[in-house]
């Protein structure tokens, strides 16, 4: 599970930001809500992921004043980020289909 979470971190992050630009803490809260206890991220590792995405031009970061009046670094997805998200989502879906096709018959379930 740990490897799967690690491999999907980038895609999930892009997905969350694509719906609405947000800052790190709120991104984490939104991911944890969506995960509904299936997994939780080590919170501190999100920021390096966001920074990598920024360097690759997939997200854009801007310091802005948040609702509380404190400055926060907001991340918004870029056009390149949307393309990358789509590609990665396609790969995940394909992989998921393959795993299901191979594993489910072996488990005696429907493929």
């Amino acid at each position: 599970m740990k490897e799967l979470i690690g491999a999907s971190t980038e895609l999930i992050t892009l997905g969350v930001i694509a719906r609405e630009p947000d800052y790190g803490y709120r991104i984490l809260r939104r991911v944890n809500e969506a995960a509904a206890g299936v997994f939780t991220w080590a919170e501190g590792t999100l920021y390096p992921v966001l920074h990598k995405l920024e360097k690759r031009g997939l997200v854009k970061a801007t310091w802005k004043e948040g609702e509380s009046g404190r400055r926060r670094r907001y991340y918004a997805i870029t056009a390149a980020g949307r393309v990358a998200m789509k590609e990665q989502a396609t790969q995940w879906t394909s992989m998921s289909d393959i795993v299901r096709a191979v594993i489910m018959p072996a488990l005696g379930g429907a493929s």
Partner: protein
Amino acid sequence: MRLSDEMLAKIQDYANSICGNDRDAAQELANHLEDEMLDYLEGGRKLDEEEAFVLARAHLGTRNEVSAAFAEDHVDECGATRTQRVWVCAFAFLIATVFARLLPGIAVAYDIATKGSASSSIGWGLFGDLATPIASVVLFGLLLARWSPTVLQVPAAAGGLLQASRGKLTTLVALGLALHLAVPSFGLSTQSVVSIATSSFGMILPALWFLCGLLIALLWLSNVDGRRASVRNRIRTAAIGWAILSALSLTSPILSLRTSVDGAIQTNLRSIWDLLPRADLDQLALFTSAFFLPYLAAFAIALFVLRVRDRRAQAGFEIA
């Protein structure tokens, strides 16, 4: 609701210890901790600021994990691979060593050609001894200035000790290099029939041996490949690697050579064997202690401090 100024400063210090010189990232991390703590404090739980801080830190992940993740982020910034870094470092040190060691060699050749003896070249030998470490320190500084986020990024440093003192560590390593190259030359040249100060070729290999040890230490401490080894294991491995290289340099005719006054090349072990019967034991003891003890002491102190800090850090998370 607002956290106390004292707590905000504490949060910022903690974030700085993880993110090092990346101030934006440290600010972002501090904001994260502040948000989370306010959520705890406003969420109806009976917690004080300290307890909320411990909880927020625990959820953030251990300091080692988080700083390792940030360090990998910086590794990507650097276009140079590990192999390239090693080659450039090795080449730069080699150039510095050859340059400095050629000076006394030229002085000896000049003395012999003009006076028939090499007596006055000792001063040039000392100059060469000093020039090597100085040139090496300058080169080392330039290399680190270019690659500081990667070469000396120490993400898994327990307690943030090494990470917080990257600049100091750089200075210490450079000084270690200077001492290492200067001490044996001063020591032996005054008491031995074996001439080290006037040997260009003989000192290059020991200098390279030291460089290898240095690189092993740096590579293992710097996590350039994102290895997950603990700091303790990194230092242990660096120390063992260095010890093996040291042993090889004492015994192998390939790794350590000396040029005697009659021009013969001999192993370091043979040189010491020749030197022993006529050496002043006090000077030899001084030479040995100056040569080895600082490194052993430095490793021992580093291990001890890291272990203590590691335990303290772990204790902090266990409370959570």
